[in-house]
């Protein structure tokens, strides 16, 4: 079973909650899919057992020995990535989308294609099972692809070791990385907060999960920051027939646990917040 924890807005407590879920489970595969801000390895310090290279994309590079600066490629490039300066044609790496069209049309065959191969995914063990996480190399861009690879690896490991549950810590936003993190999972948990931005972002996130027909539930974190906004969010979810599966108060212990590199449920198992999270997790498992 794959459970994805996401949040449209960042900083709502998504990672703290997914980490708690993972440590409430005896045996789990934890997939950190927030690949351009991967954090969970900090907490669990997994023993790395496998490193895999991910070709995140390709980039075009001009071979200046062959280039005659005809500039034909400039006209074809739709990403404005090719410029001509002082009779020298060059490619602006950050704008190159890796479509390869320039290399295909170059009459001099002067454009080489290089793989972007610095991004990695890692797999290892931690105290509650296995962990898979990705690391986007600085400057490499295809986060969606790395997210898919992390999930692929997590599924493979789950099968190999007979582990039944995969918890996915997803990225913020609603773009390609978020979509890649939730497509086809059994349950999506959206963590939101009672702020104007929280509600705005939640609406957009729920549009994605609804249109993808995913079983979705919502957690309102830090609900006591603005009880009025919390009620508003609940009302919105009710109207959309999406279950608010739990509400959690703001709890400084959660930050303390993070600093101590522990999940809140391990750090303070008897605290009210840990019990609440435990209840939410049982409910999710029961309905999935």
């Amino acid at each position, binding site marked *: 079973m794959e459970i994805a924890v996401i*949040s*449209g*807005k*960042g*900083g*709502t407590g998504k*990672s703290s909650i997914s980490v708690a879920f993972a440590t409430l489970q005896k045996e789990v595969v934890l997939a950190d899919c*927030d*690949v*351009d*801000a991967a*954090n969970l390895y*900090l*907490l669990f310090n997994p023993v790395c057992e496998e490193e895999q290279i991910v070709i995140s994309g*390709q980039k075009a590079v001009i071979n200046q020995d062959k280039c005659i600066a005809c500039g034909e490629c400039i006209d*074809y490039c*739709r*990403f404005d990535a090719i410029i001509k300066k002082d009779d020298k044609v060059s490619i602006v790496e*950050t*704008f190159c*989308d*890796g*479509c*390869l*069209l320039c290399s*295909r*049309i170059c009459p001099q065959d002067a454009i080489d294609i290089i793989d972007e191969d610095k991004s990695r995914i890692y797999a290892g063990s931690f105290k509650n099972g296995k962990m898979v996480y990705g690391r*986007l190399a*600085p*400057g490499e*861009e295809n*986060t*969606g692809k790395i997210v898919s690879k992390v999930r692929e690896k997590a599924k493979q490991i789950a099968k190999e070791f007979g582990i039944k549950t995969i918890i996915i810590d997803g*990225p*913020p*936003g*609603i*773009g*390609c*990385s978020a*979509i890649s993190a939730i497509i086809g999972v059994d349950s999506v948990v959206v963590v939101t*907060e*009672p*702020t*104007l*931005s*929280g509600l*705005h*972002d939640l609406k*957009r996130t729920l*549009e*994605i999960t609804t*249109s993808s027909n995913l079983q979705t539930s919502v957690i309102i974190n830090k609900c006591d*920051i*603005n009880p009025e*906004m919390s009620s508003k969010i609940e009302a919105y979810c009710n109207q959309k027939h999406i279950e608010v599966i739990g509400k959690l108060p703001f709890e400084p212990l959660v*930050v303390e646990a*993070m*600093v101590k*590199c522990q999940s809140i449920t391990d750090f303070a198992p008897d605290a009210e917040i840990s019990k609440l999270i435990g209840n939410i997790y049982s409910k999710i498992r029961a309905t999935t």
Partner: protein
Amino acid sequence: MLIIVITMRNLIVKIAIASGKGGTGKTFISTNLFNVLQKQEMNLALVDCDAEEPNAKLFLTEGKLKNTYEVNQKVPVVDESKCTYCGKCAEYCNYNAIFFLKEAKVINVLEDLCHGCGACSVACSYSAISEKNNLLGYVNTFEFSPKSALIEARIKVGVYSSVNVIKAAIKKASDFNLVLFDAPPGTGCPFIQTVVQADYVVLVTEPTPYGLSDLKQSIETLKGMNKSYGVIINKAGLGDEKIYDYLNKENIPLLMSVPFDKNIAVSYSKGELLTDLNSEWEEKFSQLYNTIREEYGNSSN
């Protein structure tokens, strides 16, 4: 030569407000900074580049919608009456956006995967591929005064990549003297396409292990792009001291520190601007701008 450098520097200044980790207070900083400078009648625009989840307008309510501009992307349409099923377009497509089965004579465009590069049209020798526009999102311009505006990039829900919408929004801001970018979180393509256009990057972080780890990743990326940057620590007092040690050791300027304060969190949750509620903070944000200008001046010398 010197004169040219000085005039160029006075032309336009673009400052990106970014963060690796989400929810550290990027929008909080950029909207308050904009609010303060806008009131000083500066000529400036704030571009909300967090196109997946644009929030700045929730705080900057006074702006009047001046215009909305659609951002489209070209996607191929295959005319199967002309198609010979040669498969060259699928071979040219580097995004696997053309699903092709030669024997079964199946050809489908997977529009979600298409980047609009046009390679398939070039590949086709039978004029079987034409193009249509697909809506990616909107650029909304809200005017505060004739001299200041919020320019919002907003992708349509379900669109995979926000890059084109971000680029279009930034282009719309080219007439202003000072441009602030509220950058998308992370270090992926939306982040890179935003900060690549900036002269200086303000990284907003929080003093937690997550905040520090993501800050390091952002800085690694910015170093590779040769950008100068400074840091704002938000929610100071939460977490631990490690981030300060890191900034000291790496000699990274700390531009401002905002304490963790439940009252600030509550007013933020309601969509209020701290700089409207509290004149002390108004002064601090005004000072923040001066600090950024100084740092930027030092770094570009």
